[in-house]
């Protein structure tokens, strides 16, 4: 074997030169299929990118929804809607004197119970109407009389009010949403709880027509 090796260079020039390892010719149809598959993979990769959440989507809250008296839980806090009432004005009784607030339209008064599983929190609320408008709690009623001003703590439920000044025709289908206050630049994947009082047209009409003139709360 070793001897034959040294003979190789002496091979007569007419000996057929061993070609490079032969390239097997890939048939055209297979090349086409490979190209199509490759393109499809590239397209799929681009398409999958459309499922990447945008910043707006990531900052949109994760909503837990439920109806009256239902205890709804998120990892940050729990809530239940205890009562929904309507009034034309709210009288806040304070230690010294009272403060009266009159609605521009009608006050939706939501009595909400809140608790937190782990640490003290402040929870704000807003109303989302059936057509998607967002109403912040009215500033006509002193904030001290609302639940937004109180600490929500572990181990017990805290009940209180949120007041919204809504046009009468926006009451039907309105939901009360409670969440932690938004931060300046937004936080990803924050929970919120949407509480649906189940106000259809008829019930909304009935309740707003029967709105109290004065609703008294202590602040």
């Amino acid at each position, binding site marked *: 074997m070793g001897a034959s090796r040294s003979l190789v260079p002496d091979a007569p020039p007419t000996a057929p030169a061993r070609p490079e390892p032969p390239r097997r010719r890939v048939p055209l149809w297979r090349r086409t299929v490979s190209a199509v598959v490759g393109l499809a993979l590239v397209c799929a990769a681009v398409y999958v990118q459309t499922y990447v959440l945008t*910043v707006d989507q990531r*900052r949109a809250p994760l909503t837990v929804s439920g109806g009256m008296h239902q205890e709804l839980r998120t990892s940050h806090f729990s809530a239940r809607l205890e009562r929904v009432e309507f009034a034309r004005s709210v009288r806040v009784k304070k230690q010294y004197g009272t403060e009266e607030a009159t609605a521009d*339209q009608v006050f939706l008064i939501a009595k909400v119970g809140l608790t937190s599983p782990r640490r003290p929190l402040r929870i704000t609320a807003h109303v989302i109407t059936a057509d998607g*408008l*967002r109403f*912040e709690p009215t*500033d*006509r009623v002193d904030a001290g009389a609302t639940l937004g001003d109180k600490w929500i703590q572990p181990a017990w439920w805290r009940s209180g009010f949120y007041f919204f000044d809504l*046009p009468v025709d926006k009451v039907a289908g309105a939901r009360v949403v409670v969440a932690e206050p938004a931060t300046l630049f937004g936080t990803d994947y924050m929970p919120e709880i949407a509480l649906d009082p189940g106000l259809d047209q008829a019930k909304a009409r009935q309740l707003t027509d029967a709105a109290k003139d004065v609703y008294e709360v202590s602040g």
Partner: protein
Amino acid sequence: MGVGAAFGGLEDAPKEKPEQLGKGAEVDQGRMTTLFEDAVVRPGGKDGLGISDKRYLQITMKVTNTSEATFIAEMMNSALVAVRADGKPIKEARPSATTLGPRVVTISGGHTYGQLHPGVPATVVMAFELQAGQQAPKRVEIDAGTYEWHESFTYRTHYWERVEEQEPLTAEDRKKGATASYTPKIIAQVDLPVRVEEV
């Protein structure tokens, strides 16, 4: 790029002249529609605005929030970019730190509040305090800006933003080392006569 160059650059588009309007005009500012009702000089105290031994120039508007969420009345401070009284600016597009801006409130039932709820028209008053002995102006001219639902270039987030236009650099900007200068776009100029109301 080539197209931009061929048409003489992107920055030289002629500026639209703002609409010239008067009392009672309504302006759609993107985020709100504003009906300019009145301009009055009166002592403070009415509707819980100001104190009675001072005089105020009050511009009264009917503002309807056409966006999808509640915002505060102070927003009108930036929506109305500049205000001039008899040609003299009393509120500037680029306010200096030394002057406190006007107070902007909503008024209802003799109280001042601060919110504009979506779709609900509200009376908004922009109040400028007049110095003791200062003459009441004859006319005020208000520059109304406009808002758009803006998409941020970097993060693709969306928010309301006042529309701004690039303008040529001033000598002062150059001194500060600015490379571009923006001013709010003015879509309408409203000229209001000023009434004087004594107590």
